[in-house]
């Protein structure tokens, strides 16, 4: 979960962050990263921060954290070393408190160098031009799936993903959404079994939920579009009837419709 942190994303005019600012101060003063005069750098750093504040640049919290770090290092350097070392030598060879900072600065400096190297590389490469649509700019039709992906791959992927999801899927998802394909077959089957077509309403299971009703309706539309079924209505507001179209049927003349349907069927009801 990523919380939006707008105040955090402030782009200072010049500096990418506290390390960038520090590095700039170090380079500007021609200092050695591994031997930073902390008191001086801290003073300059704080001055830079207040300059940013004066310019009304929102000083991001990272800059403040670094300020605190610098102060802490400075304080530790100022602390007098104990005159007598404890017998266990605990104070001996204590790490230079500046070491960690130097390591981070050195690392960041390398990143900056790498970024510049990439940038130069890109500039050189951009002197080359390619055939239109190259590289990576889709020209015209979207590229489709690519490679040789078959329906079988698709089915296998679906099975895999369901198997992997296991039983603890959210309920809402497990509820079978009644695939259109199944509903297509169902509608066809029921029409085949009925000799005279079916009233529209009879295609829906009495306890069908909204989703199933929608899919059944979509199935009906699809079958109509495919010309496998005709839908007719004798009069406005009258019952709508659905007929299976058999091979050789005249469009709009169901093989065995009730007389009522013929009345309105002269113009080829469901045919287009």
């Amino acid at each position, binding site marked *: 979960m990523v919380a939006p942190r707008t105040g955090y994303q402030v782009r200072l005019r010049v500096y990418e962050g506290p390390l960038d600012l520090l590095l700039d101060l170090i380079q500007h003063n021609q200092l050695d990263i591994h031997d930073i005069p902390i008191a001086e750098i801290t003073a300059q750093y704080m001055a830079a921060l207040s300059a940013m504040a004066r310019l009304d640049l929102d000083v991001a919290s990272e800059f403040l954290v670094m300020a605190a770090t610098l102060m802490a290092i400075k304080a530790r350097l100022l602390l007098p070393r104990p005159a007598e070392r404890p017998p266990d030598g605990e104070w001996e060879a204590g790490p230079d408190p500046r070491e960690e900072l130097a390591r981070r600065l050195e690392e960041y400096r390398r990143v900056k160098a790498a970024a510049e190297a990439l940038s130069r590389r890109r500039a050189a490469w951009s002197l080359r*031009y*390619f*055939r*239109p*649509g190259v590289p990576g700019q*889709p*020209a015209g*039709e*979207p*590229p*489709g*799936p*690519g*490679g*040789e*992906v*078959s*329906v*079988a*791959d*698709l*089915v296998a*992927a*679906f*099975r*895999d*993903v*369901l198997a*992997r*999801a296991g039983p603890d*899927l*959210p309920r*809402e*998802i497990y509820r*079978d*959404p*009644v*695939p*259109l*394909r*199944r*509903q*297509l*077959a*169902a*509608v066809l*089957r*029921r029409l085949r*079994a*009925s000799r005279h077509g*079916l*009233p529209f*309403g*009879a295609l829906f*299971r009495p306890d069908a939920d909204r989703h199933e009703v929608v899919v059944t309706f979509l*199935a009906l539309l*699809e079958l109509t579009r*495919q010309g496998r079924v005709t839908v007719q209505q004798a009069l406005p507001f009258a019952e709508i009837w659905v007929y299976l179209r058999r091979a050789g049927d005249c469009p709009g003349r169901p093989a065995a419709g009730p007389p009522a349907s013929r009345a309105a069927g002269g113009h080829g009801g469901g045919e287009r």
Partner: protein
Amino acid sequence: MSGGDRLPPEALGALEALLFTATEPVEPARLARALGFTEGQLRLAVDGLRARYAGEESGIELVEVAGGLMLGTKPAFAPLLEEMGRRREPAPLSRAALETLAIVAYRQPVPRPEIEAIRGVNCESPLRTLLDRGLIRPVGRREAPGRPTLYGTTDAFLRAFGLRHLGDLPDPEPPSPGPDAWPLETPAGATS
């Protein structure tokens, strides 16, 4: 052709680079202007390129079409290119993209959170791939908190997988007819 029609040494290269990057035939006058050539110089350069492309070791040639010049492959290589399916062949779909596509195909219309719940991972990137490749598209929004975008497959999807319509999608679970396979079993008796 006047005696002043001498060609600078890189003339052919410049002409070639221009034509190589053109998206449509370029009129000779425009070419001449772009290259700073006289009409005569352009003719010389065109002839020069033609000569360079003449040999059988060259795969491309200069063609004149629609009042302009362009580069194209030689007809002799058509069979080879056709075999290569030169309709741009993108990299095959990643596993993540294929799974995401399968979920969209079978569950459409489906919102991203549901896809992610099923796959158990963030699906932003595969969804984008599929949208970019024209295999899926937003088909609406679910009337639910946040009104998430619903995705469905496209006609390009059907074409790509050789399906006439969505009803052609094979049953993902052929062995066991699910618990509510109702309509398949119901006899005709249901007629009101």
